């Protein structure tokens, strides 16, 4: 039992030290908070961010987005 726990600890430790720590100066907490949301089930954040981007685009260029979608639909 002790060996199993130790092995698990060792694996986790190797995973942690395998990557260089990510620091962004004063923005490190913001980065960590952002990345934490992406680690498990990031889809709600993806969808909300995408909706926000598209709404901003719609307010900027209006119904021209239909032209953009027409181009994208022919783009495959």
């Amino acid at each position, binding site marked *: 039992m002790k060996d199993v726990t130790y092995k698990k600890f060792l694996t986790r430790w190797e*995973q942690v030290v*395998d*990557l*260089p*720590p*990510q*620091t*962004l100066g004063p923005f490190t907490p913001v*980065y960590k908070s952002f*990345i934490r949301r*992406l*680690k*498990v*089930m*990031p*889809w709600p954040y*993806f*969808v909300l*961010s*995408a*909706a926000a*981007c*598209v*709404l901003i*685009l*719609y307010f900027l260029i209006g*119904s021209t*987005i*239909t*032209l*953009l*979608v*027409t181009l*994208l*639909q*022919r*783009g*495959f």
Partner: protein
Amino acid sequence: MLDQLIMSGIAFGRTTIGLVVRPYETYRKVVGKGGAWELVYVAALAIVYFSLASLVKVAAFRPFLLSKHAVVLAVAALVTYMLVVCVVWLVGKQFGGKGTMKGIAVGWGYTMLPTVCWFFMTSLLYILLPPPRTASIAGTGFSVLFLVVSTTLFFWKLTLGYLTLRFGLKLDLWRILAVVGVVGPVMGVWSWGMYRLGIFRVPFL
């Protein structure tokens, strides 16, 4: 070989679910322990898409034309994939990357899932609701929905690309941005070439 293919199929299924639910943890495993055989399934999905795209584009059932079009698309996608992996590997090494080429190849291979999903979605919608879109309420509503889904898939692709560089080359954010800054223009020129040749209008990266 059959055993290996079945085992890889199971691993591919588990990894795909992992990429949806826990991308970070899954990528750590994939880059470290993932096998190249798993990419066979990504390639199979892409080939199914190329066949469908050829059928939609050629708009007539002429087997020779269909197969020629599908082969051109498949070869172009394969060359693009190999180019991305090689350029990322070479540039990453210049910025102090420590990973293995196999890790990057497997990691980047899995980033093709959002790409294939988007291309599948677009070709199916091309059949169901062919363009052009109009500025009516229905047309604008569909356009907004299409863009939201496309951007969501793009964010997924960005995340998987970031994780490929993070785990594949063991780089920090600044170096990842530097690698993207060098690889981005190279792939931009390549994609423009593909566009000029009439192979891919939207880059199949």
